[in-house]
C-alpha cells in the first residue's frame, strides 16, 4: 500500500505537521488513538498519535518531532512523496464523558495529542482548562487551536520567554490547591514531564491519566515490546493503553526501556547521514539534511 501526503510543513523548528490521505483510518479514529507508519521497505515502524482527522476529506494529521533516523527522514518528505505503510487507528480510545472540569496538560510535542482530547472533552460538555508548555516561546505549538477548544489556557516556558516562567507542573499544583473542583487531569509529554505530573498529583484525590510512549513494533499486542508496569501488573501499552493511571505507572522502568537502543539509534542516524551524502554529494540540490 502507499499513502499520499496531502500537506506537510514545519510548525516550529524540528516539529512538523503532516496530513496523510487515509480515509478508512479517519473514519474509525477516536481521541487518543495512534497510528504506526513505515516510510519505505527498509524503514522502521514508528508510532505517532493522531493529532487531528477529517472524515470528509479522508485525512489524518500527525505532528512529530525530529528525534532519530525515522523522524529526521520523515521531516524531509514532501507532498510529492508517499508513505509505504500507515496503520491505525491503534490503542484504546479515551473514555470521554461529561465529568465537569478537565485539566489537559501538554508538554512539547505532547500538545499535539492533547488537542483532539480538548476537542472531544469540550464536545462532551466539559469545562476544559489547558496547560501547554515548551522549552521556549518559539517551540510552542498549536496555541491558537488550543485556545479555540479550551475555556482557559495557561502557557509555560522553561526560559520564561512566554507565559509562566517554569514548568507545567507549577500550574497543575496551583490549580489543585485552588478552589475549583477538578474531575480529571490528562497529561501528555516527555516521560520526565509525565512523571513530574504524577508526583504533583500524588497527594490529591484527582484521577490523572498519562499517555505512555514506549518503543513499539506491531502495535497490535503481538510482540510485547511495549510492555509497561502499571500498579505492579504488566500491560501492553499498544492494546491496553496508551492511557494509564499516572499514579500507578512505573516511570523508571519505562524510561529505562526507552533507552535500550540508544547506541543503535545513533548508528542509524550516522548511517543515514553518510548514506545520503554519498548518494547526492550533498550539493545545493540536497534535501536530505
Amino acid at each position, binding site marked *: *500500500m502507499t499513502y499520499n501526503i496531502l500537506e506537510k510543513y514545519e510548525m516550529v523548528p524540528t516539529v512538523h505537521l503532516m496530513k496523510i490521505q487515509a480515509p478508512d483510518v479517519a473514519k*474509525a479514529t477516536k481521541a487518543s488513538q495512534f497510528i504506526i507508519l513505515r516510510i519505505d521497505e527498509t524503514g522502521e515502524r514508528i508510532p505517532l498519535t493522531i493529532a487531528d482527522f477529517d472524515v470528509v476529506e479522508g485525512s489524518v494529521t500527525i505532528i512529530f518531532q525530529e528525534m532519530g533516523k525515522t523522524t529526521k527522514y520523515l521531516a524531509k518528505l514532501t507532498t510529492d512523496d508517499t508513505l509505504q505503510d500507515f496503520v491505525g487507528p491503534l490503542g484504546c480510545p479515551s473514555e470521554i464523558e461529561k465529568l465537569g472540569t478537565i485539566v489537559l496538560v501538554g508538554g512539547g510535542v505532547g500538545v499535539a495529542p492533547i488537542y483532539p482530547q480538548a476537542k472531544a472533552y469540550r464536545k462532551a460538555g466539559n469545562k476544559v482548562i489547558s496547560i501547554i508548555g515548551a522549552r521556549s516561546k518559539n517551540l510552542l505549538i498549536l496555541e491558537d487551536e488550543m485556545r479555540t477548544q479550551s475555556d482557559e489556557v495557561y502557557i509555560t516556558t522553561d526560559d520564561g520567554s512566554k507565559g509562566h516562567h517554569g514548568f507545567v507542573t507549577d500550574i497543575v499544583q496551583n490549580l489543585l490547591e485552588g478552589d475549583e473542583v477538578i474531575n480529571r487531569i490528562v497529561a501528555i509529554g516527555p516521560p520526565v514531564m509525565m512523571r513530574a505530573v504524577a508526583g504533583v498529583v500524588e497527594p490529591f484525590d484527582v484521577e490523572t491519566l498519562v499517555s505512555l510512549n514506549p518503543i513499539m*513494533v*506491531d*502495535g*497490535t*499486542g*503481538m*510482540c510485547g515490546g511495549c*510492555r509497561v508496569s502499571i500498579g505492579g501488573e504488566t500491560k501492553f501499552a499498544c492494546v491496553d493503553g496508551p492511557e494509564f493511571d499516572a499514579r500507578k505507572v512505573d516511570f523508571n522502568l519505562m524510561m529505562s526501556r526507552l533507552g535500550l537502543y540508544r547506541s543503535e539509534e545513533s548508528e542509524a542516524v550516522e548511517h543515514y547521514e553518510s548514506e545520503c551524502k554519498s548518494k547526492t554529494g550533498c550539493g545545493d540540490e540536497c534535501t536530505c539534511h
Partner: protein
Amino acid sequence: MSLRQTMPTQPADERAHNFNEVALGYTMEQAVSEAKRCIECKNPQCVKGCPVNIDIPAFIKSMKISDFDDAIGKIKETNSLPAICGRVCPQETQCEMYCVLGKKEEPVAIGRLERFCADYEREKGVKPPQRTTSTGKHVAIVGSGPAGLTAASDLAKAGHKVTIFEALHAAGGVLVYGIPEFMLPKDIVQEEVDYIGQFGVDIKPDYVIGRIKTIDELKKEFDAIFIGTGAGLPNFMGIDGENLNGVYSANEFLTRVNLMKAYQFPEYDTPVKKSKRVIVVGGGNVAMDSARCALRLGADEVSIVYRRSDEELPARREEIEHAKEEGIVFRLLMNPVKILGDKNLMVTGAECVNMELGEPDDSGRRRPHEIQGSEHVIDADIIIMAIGTSPNPLIFEGAVGLKASDRGTIIVNESGMTSIEGVCAGGDIVTGAATVISAMGAGKLAAETINEYLDKTNQENAC
C-alpha cells in the same frame, strides 16, 4: 531396498554465521531416486496424513519419469503453498508417518519431494492459475497466515471475490514474522503469496480488524467471513525481572529479525540487541528458531533452558539436531525462577533451578518438579521467552455474538462455522498454537463450508 536420500545442508560451522537457507534441497537425481522408492500403494496411507489432501502417489509417479511440470500441477490441485509446506510441514508426524515404507525402513521423503517440485517450477517461472467465472459473492478473510491464504485461494478458485485484511504490512502471518529466513526464505513466501494474488485475491495490509473495522461492520459489506488471526499474543512467565531491558518475547525478537530484517541493520532501520550470552526459555520450534537467530547475530553462547528432558522437547527432531550441530547449548531439566538485572535495569542473568520429572500430567508428559536448593545463576545479557502464545483478543472487539473458549480461542463447529452464521474461523485462533499444515487444513475446510453457505443463501434468495 534403497535408502532415503539425505538432504544436502550448509555445513554447520558456516551456516551458524549466516541467514541463508540451511537445507539446500534435493538435486534432480536425488529427487528422482527418492521418488522411485514410492511403491504407489493402491490404498495410499500417506494421503490420510495430509490435511490438504495432496494426491501423493500421483505426483510422485510423475516425478519418477522426471515430469515435474505434471507433478507440481497435481500438487497445486489442492495446495497453493507447496514450497512453504515442503519446508516447514512437520512431515514426520503428517504424511510421512503413515507411509507404509516407514514400517520397515524410512518413509518416502514426501515433503522434500514436494519442495523439489515447487522449487523446480519457481525457477522456471510459475504458471499463473486460471481464473474462474465470478459468482458475484464477496468474502472477507481476516489474517493472511497459512489458514487465511489457503481459504482465500480455495474461495477464489470457486469464483468468489476475496479480500484479505492483514494487520501487518506484509502477508504471510508467522511465515513472515516468525519462521526465520534460514528455514523459510521470505522471497519464497512472497512468491506463493503473489500466486494466490493471481487468483484475483485482493490483499489489504495495514488493516487491523477490531480497530479500523469490526467483524460486525464486515458482515454488512461481505457475504461471508473467514477469521484466521492466529495465536499471536506472547505469554510471559510472570516471574520477577521479566520486564527488564534485554528480555524479549520470542515474537518480538523474531519479528525484529525476520519481518523487520534487523539482521541487516543499519541497511534496515529496525535494531535488535546483539549480545554475547543469550538464554532462550522453552523447547519448541519457536525456541529453536530464536536460539538459532541469536547465534547468527553473533552471540558467543546461546543456550536453551527447558524444564523437561531431551525426550520431551516439543520441537521437530530435525530442528533440534540442527541446533545442536550449530553449537546451541541445551540446559535441560532447568527452569528460570527470577531474572536478574543491574542498576540500569539491564539484564545480567537468570536465577535457575534444576528440575526432575514426576508423574505424567494431563498431556501425558511427565510433570517437572523443582529440586530444592538447586538455585544457581546463569549469566546472560539477552533472555528470550519462548513459552507459548495465546489468541489475540482484538478480533472480538465489535464482534457481537462471537463465542470464545476459556482459553480465548474461537469456538467453531465441525465444519469450521463460528457462533455467527456465515462467519467461519480456523487455524491457531481456533486450536491455539499448532502447525502451518493444520492451519491450512482448517482454511480448506472453512472454504468448503463457506461455499455451501453461499450456495444455500443463493437458493434462499432465488425463492
